[in-house]
C-alpha cells in the first residue's frame, strides 16, 4: 500500500442495498391473480403478462363444446333405468307379503291342529291316519321282535291303555275302524286267547274268561281251533263285544295282507313263549300276532 492510498477507515462505505426481487409475489397478490380480480394493467411489474394469461385461460369458450348430445343420451338412459328400479323392487316386496301370509296361515293351522290334538277333538279320519302312521312306524322298528310282549303304542301313548287293550278292554273312539283297532284287538279274540292258552298255562289265568266262549262253542277245548277256523272267515264270531274283520294273522290291525302262513304256526304254540316266561303279562298274546318274528326270536335264543 502506497502513501497515496487512503486509510481503510477513510473509505466511505456505501450502504448495502440488495437488488430487490422484481418477481416478488406476496400471498395477497397471488390470490388476486388466481381469483381473476387483478387486471393486467393493475398487476405489478412482471405479472401483467401472467394476469393476461390467466384471464385467457379462464375466459368463456366462444365455441360450443361438443359432446352434449352424448351426455343427454346417457342422461335419458340413466333416468329410464332409475324409474324402472322401483318397479323391479316392488316384486320382492309382494313376494315378501305373500310369504308372510303363507307363514301366518301355516302357523295358524299348526296351532289349531295342536290345540285340537290336545283337547282330543281331532276328527276321526285324522286320528285314524295318525294311528296308522304310529302303527306302521312301530311295525317297521326292529325292537318288537326282541321284545315279544311289547305292544304298539296306541294313539294316547298310555301304558295302562295298552294293558287294557290287551285285555280286550281298550276303549275305542267312536267311528274308529276296526281294522285299525291295533294289537289289543288280537288279544280281544278269544280264539287267539285260547290258542295261546294251549301253549302257556298262565294264559289260561288271564284269558280264561275270554277263552270260555269258544270252548263252550266247541264243546271241547280240543275243538277250539277248528271252531275258530270256522268262525273267522266271516268275522261274525268274536268275543261277543266287537266285530272284527278277517284278521291279518298278525293282530296288528294294519289291514294289510297277511303272510301266507302268518298266525298259523304261532297259533299252534310252536314259537310261543316258554310256559314260564311272560306269564301274566297283558302282552302274552303277542307271540301269536308276531308269529314269524317270534319264530326267529325263539330260534336265535
Amino acid at each position, binding site marked *: 500500500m502506497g502513501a497515496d492510498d487512503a486509510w481503510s477507515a477513510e473509505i466511505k462505505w456505501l450502504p448495502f442495498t440488495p437488488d430487490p426481487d422484481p418477481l416478488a409475489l406476496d400471498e395477497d397478490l397471488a390470490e388476486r391473480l*388466481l381469483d381473476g380480480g387483478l387486471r393486467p394493467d393493475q398487476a405489478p411489474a412482471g405479472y401483467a403478462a401472467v394476469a393476461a394469461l390467466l384471464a385467457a385461460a*379462464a375466459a368463456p369458450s366462444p365455441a360450443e*363444446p361438443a*359432446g352434449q348430445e352424448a*351426455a343427454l343420451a346417457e342422461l335419458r338412459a340413466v333416468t329410464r333405468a332409475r324409474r324402472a328400479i322401483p318397479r323391479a323392487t316392488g316384486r320382492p316386496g309382494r313376494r315378501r307379503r305373500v310369504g308372510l301370509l303363507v307363514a301366518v296361515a301355516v302357523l295358524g293351522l299348526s296351532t289349531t291342529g295342536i290345540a285340537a290334538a290336545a283337547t282330543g277333538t281331532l276328527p276321526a279320519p285324522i286320528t285314524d291316519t295318525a294311528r296308522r302312521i304310529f302303527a306302521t312306524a312301530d311295525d317297521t322298528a326292529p325292537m318288537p321282535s326282541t321284545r315279544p310282549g311289547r305292544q304298539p303304542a296306541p294313539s294316547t301313548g298310555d301304558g295302562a291303555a295298552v294293558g287294557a287293550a290287551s285285555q280286550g278292554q281298550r276303549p275305542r273312539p267312536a267311528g274308529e275302524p276296526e281294522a285299525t283297532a291295533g294289537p289289543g284287538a288280537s288279544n280281544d279274540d278269544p280264539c287267539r286267547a285260547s290258542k295261546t292258552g294251549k301253549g302257556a298255562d298262565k294264559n289260561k289265568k288271564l284269558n280264561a274268561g275270554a277263552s270260555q266262549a269258544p270252548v263252550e262253542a266247541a264243546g271241547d277245548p280240543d275243538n277250539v281251533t277248528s271252531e275258530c277256523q270256522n268262525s273267522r272267515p266271516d268275522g261274525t264270531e268274536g268275543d261277543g263285544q266287537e266285530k272284527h274283520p278277517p284278521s291279518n294273522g298278525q293282530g296288528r290291525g294294519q289291514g294289510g295282507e297277511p303272510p301266507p302262513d302268518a298266525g298259523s304256526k304261532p297259533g299252534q304254540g310252536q314259537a310261543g313263549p316258554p310256559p314260564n316266561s311272560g306269564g301274566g303279562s297283558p302282552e302274552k298274546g303277542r307271540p301269536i300276532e308276531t308269529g314269524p318274528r317270534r319264530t326267529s326270536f325263539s330260534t336265535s335264543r
Partner: protein
Amino acid sequence: MIGPTFPAVLTAAATGDEDAFGVLWHDLQPRLLRYFKVIAPGAAEDLASETWLAVIRGVGRFQGDEAAFRAWVFTIARHKARDRWRQAARKPVQELPETGLAEPLAPDDPAATVLEDASTRAALALIATLPAGQAEAIVLRVVAGLEVNQVAELMDKRPNTVRVLTHRGLRRLAERLGADQGPRARRAV
C-alpha cells in the same frame, strides 16, 4: 357460475330434466376440457365424456351447493385421469418415429402466442409446461374456480402445500413470460 338457481337446476337435473342438465353441462364442460388439456393432453374429450357419465349416474345422490358440486365433478375428473394414467402405465404406447411428425414448436412459441392473441389454447399450453403439481393446482384454482381447501382435498395435499405450488407456478410463469418479452422487446427495438 350458475348462481342462486343452482339448487333448483341440480334437483331438476337429478330427475332427468334435460334442460337443467344442459345448464350444468354448459357451465362445467369447458372447464373440464381445459383441465384435461393441462393434465392429460390428448385425451381431454374422452375423459370429459367419462366424467359426465359418472356425474349423471351419481348426481341423484349428490347433496351440496354449487361450489361443492363443482369440486365433486372435478374430483371425478381427476380420478378418471388417474385411471387413464394407470392404464397407460400397464399398456405402454409404442412411440411413433419423430420423422413423421410436424416440426416441433420453438420453446418460446407458446408464450409468444399468448402475448399476441391471448388465446385460451395458448394459455393452457403454457400452463401445461409447468411441473404437474403446479399446473394442476393453478388450473383447479383459475379454470375450475375452486378454493384452496377444495383443491387441497382434491389433490390430497395440505392447503399450505397448494399455496406453495400455485405461488411457484405463478412465479415460473412470470419468469417465462418475462424472458420471452425481453427478446421480443429487443426485436421490436
